[in-house]
């Protein structure tokens, strides 16, 4: 009973802050708004009874967005947004593309008969099943993802410290 209400509430919060990300001229505020979007998504995950993913989302995004805020302050000419610098281009076509994308998704969401109504395992059962999935059938995928992220970390650092003329 409470599930649709919780999902709706966190959904509205997520959409509101997603709009804020691209409307505010302060970089730190927009990084924090993105963090709020991700926290709201974590709330939806928890409301959908995916406890592990919800908590993981909250922890990962809290650290990721904090790092993002630091980088924003480092690389922006006007991180505080005090100069009211124009930071957008091709606003109209971008808005059109965004509206079309959202409209397409909404059409699919509303007009497809998705079915559903299945019951989920208990949190403990979920953890057990996810562990079996990760360490069994999806082991190769999981390991590959780990190695890929390690390679990306090393490569990104190498690019960042390389000497540029």
């Amino acid at each position, binding site marked *: 009973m409470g599930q649709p209400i919780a999902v709706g509430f966190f959904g509205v919060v997520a959409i509101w802050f997603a709009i804020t990300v691209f409307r505010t001229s302060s970089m730190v505020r927009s990084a924090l708004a993105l963090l709020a979007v991700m926290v709201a998504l974590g709330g939806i*995950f928890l409301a959908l009874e995916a406890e592990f993913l919800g908590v993981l989302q909250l922890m990962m995004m809290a650290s990721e967005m904090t790092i993002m805020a630091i980088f924003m302050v480092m*690389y922006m000419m006007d991180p505080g947004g005090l100069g009211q610098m124009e930071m957008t*281009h091709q606003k109209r076509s971008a808005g059109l593309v965004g509206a079309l994308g959202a409209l397409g998704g909404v059409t699919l969401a509303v007009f497809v008969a*998705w079915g559903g109504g299945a019951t989920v395992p208990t949190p403990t059962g979920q953890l057990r099943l996810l562990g079996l999935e990760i360490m069994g059938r999806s082991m190769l995928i999981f390991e590959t993802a780990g190695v890929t992220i390690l390679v990306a970390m090393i490569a990104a650092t190498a690019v960042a410290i390389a000497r540029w003329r």
Partner: protein
Amino acid sequence: MTLTLCLLVGAVLFGIGLYGAFSQTNLVMIMMGVEVMLGAAMLNLVAFWRFLHPQAFSGQMFVLIVMTVMALEAAVGFGLATARFRAKGSVEMEEAAELKG
């Protein structure tokens, strides 16, 4: 009904992310648009897992992969931003027209 609600939220978030990725001039802000889009994709995956296949945990596995992709995107993006900032002194993409083929 809740599934439709989740998909609606995901669709709107995806649209906003698309707008952000196309309209922003700063590399870091473009990455934020991509992050919003990936968040919408994750929401859809969790909703589909919950309401259509709660016994199949490949769905949650897929969410973990998308989270990895988000972290990768941030790492690669910031690596590029650092390189670009050192070479040119800014990450404004309006000034990156020399990358045009």
